[in-house]
């Protein structure tokens, strides 16, 4: 009502003054993706002046794979009218003029101006360390991670407690059996030793059941598998993994094989694996001059292999042999169950996970997943 009472030029001036003070970047594009307007906050966030980017394709602000796919997203929307992001928003990654990438929350709206369709994008930078912890937890919560992680923490504690009981019993039975078999045992002692060994086997089975319960929880508990886009999963996980990494200047490169984009997975679980591997990679590069993270995929007929490669300090021989075992870690903080959970999730999806030394001393983690086409056969 207030704006309507103003003349056209006054309205425009008023809106511009509002936009100048909004901390989030605002970018307006036409229906072909050409930048029409670039707010002062956008100039500051991305490092370009409005007159430099006006007329350019907005995809220039995105890293691969969104960069080369954005035109397709727009034409698909123009043809189908199906909203995949408009009015919904998403967490993704953007790229500054200096080449660095950073996580953002993107909200997109649609409007008609003089019979022409335009899209407005509000971009909130979530890379800052200050808000990182809080935001990271909020985002994780949105992805139902926190509940899962809290349950895992509880589960890990009870697992340790429950495993301790059969292990203590096994120790006692074995020691008892060894004592009974000392010297020349009579028939009675032999029978007791036999019984102790049977009990040992029973306790070992019980320990196995406890471990299986944890696997069942992870693989079937609330697993919801659907056909998903690997590029979307990777883009969102990369954004989550980069939260709080602004000061570290991580150079991220994503290169995905379009042939393996459709996968049948629990999106939350696979993102959990990727976020885990990405944050491990960032931690491993903290003391290194070159901090380069490459996420790539390579598909064959029925499998896609995803790799997360860092240029960090590598993995010591001491840890290498037991890296996927629970409670094994080189970090000062952390329980050391991250990679163990990753392996459980990937194996539950019918894949494998392993690692190898990178060509320049870093580490490459690779895991496989079946493509969705396999399931459709």
């Amino acid at each position: 009502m207030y704006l309507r009472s103003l003349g056209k030029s006054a309205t425009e001036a008023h809106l511009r003054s509002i936009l100048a003070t909004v901390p989030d970047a605002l970018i307006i594009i036409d229906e072909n993706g050409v930048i029409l307007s670039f707010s002062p906050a956008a100039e500051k966030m991305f490092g370009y002046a409005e007159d430099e980017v006006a007329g350019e394709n907005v995809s220039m602000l995105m890293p691969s794979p969104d960069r080369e796919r954005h035109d397709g997203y727009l034409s698909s929307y123009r043809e189908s009218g199906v909203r995949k992001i408009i009015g919904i928003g998403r967490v993704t990654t953007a790229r500054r003029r200096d080449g660095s990438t950073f996580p953002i929350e993107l909200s997109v709206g649609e409007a008609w101006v003089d019979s022409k369709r335009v899209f407005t994008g509000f971009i909130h930078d979530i890379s800052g360390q200050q808000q990182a912890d809080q935001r990271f937890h909020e985002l994780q919560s949105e992805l139902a991670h926190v509940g899962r992680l809290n349950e895992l923490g509880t589960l890990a504690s009870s697992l340790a407690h429950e495993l301790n009981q059969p292990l203590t019993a096994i120790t006692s039975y074995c020691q008892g059996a060894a004592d009974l078999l000392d010297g020349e045992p009579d028939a009675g002692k032999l029978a007791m030793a036999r019984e102790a060994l049977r009990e040992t086997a029973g306790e070992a089975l019980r320990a196995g059941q406890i471990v299986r319960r944890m696997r069942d929880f992870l693989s079937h508990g609330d697993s919801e598998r659907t056909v998903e886009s690997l590029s979307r999963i990777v883009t969102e996980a990369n954004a989550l993994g980069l939260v709080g990494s602004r000061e570290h200047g991580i150079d991220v490169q994503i290169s995905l094989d379009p042939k393996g984009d459709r996968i049948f997975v629990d999106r939350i679980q696979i993102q959990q694996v990727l976020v885990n591997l990405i944050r491990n990679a960032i931690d491993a590069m903290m003391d290194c001059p070159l901090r380069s993270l490459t996420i790539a995929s390579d598909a064959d007929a029925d499998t896609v292999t995803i790799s997360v490669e860092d240029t960090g300090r590598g993995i010591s021989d001491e840890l290498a042999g037991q890296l996927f075992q629970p409670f094994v870690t080189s970090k000062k903080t952390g329980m050391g169950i991250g990679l163990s959970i990753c392996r459980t999730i990937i194996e539950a999806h019918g894949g494998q996970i392993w690692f190898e030394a990178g060509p320049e001393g870093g580490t490459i983690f690779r895991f496989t997943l079946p493509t969705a086409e396999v399931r459709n056969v």
Partner: protein
Amino acid sequence: MRSAGVRAHETGRMNNWKQIRLELASTPEFPAGSVSRAYLLRLPISDDDHVDVAAYRQNPRRAVVRRHWSSEPDQRGQLLEAGEEWIIHCDGKPDSRLELDGKPLRLGQQIPIKIGEGIELPLRIASIR
């Protein structure tokens, strides 16, 4: 003649590695140039603003190149010294050649790139950090 870009002080220092952003300069198709078409080079630079070849040779794998070109997929490769030329090598793509010959690496400096038979584009140094 040895390339002046390579003639640089050969200090071999490891702390003078910089990231140089080269953007497309004026062409008939883009008279004002284009900020969405760029190469990012990581190279060591000597005090007189040329490539520090000794530092490069100590760790050539650090000389990474990235190509961000409009709506095309990102490319990443290595910058290789080849005689008097510098070659941009990205797996699965034809090599490109950067003409660093005699040109100081300073803001605004134009540097041509040969991207194929007879195709040469002017690039301009937009930032060094």
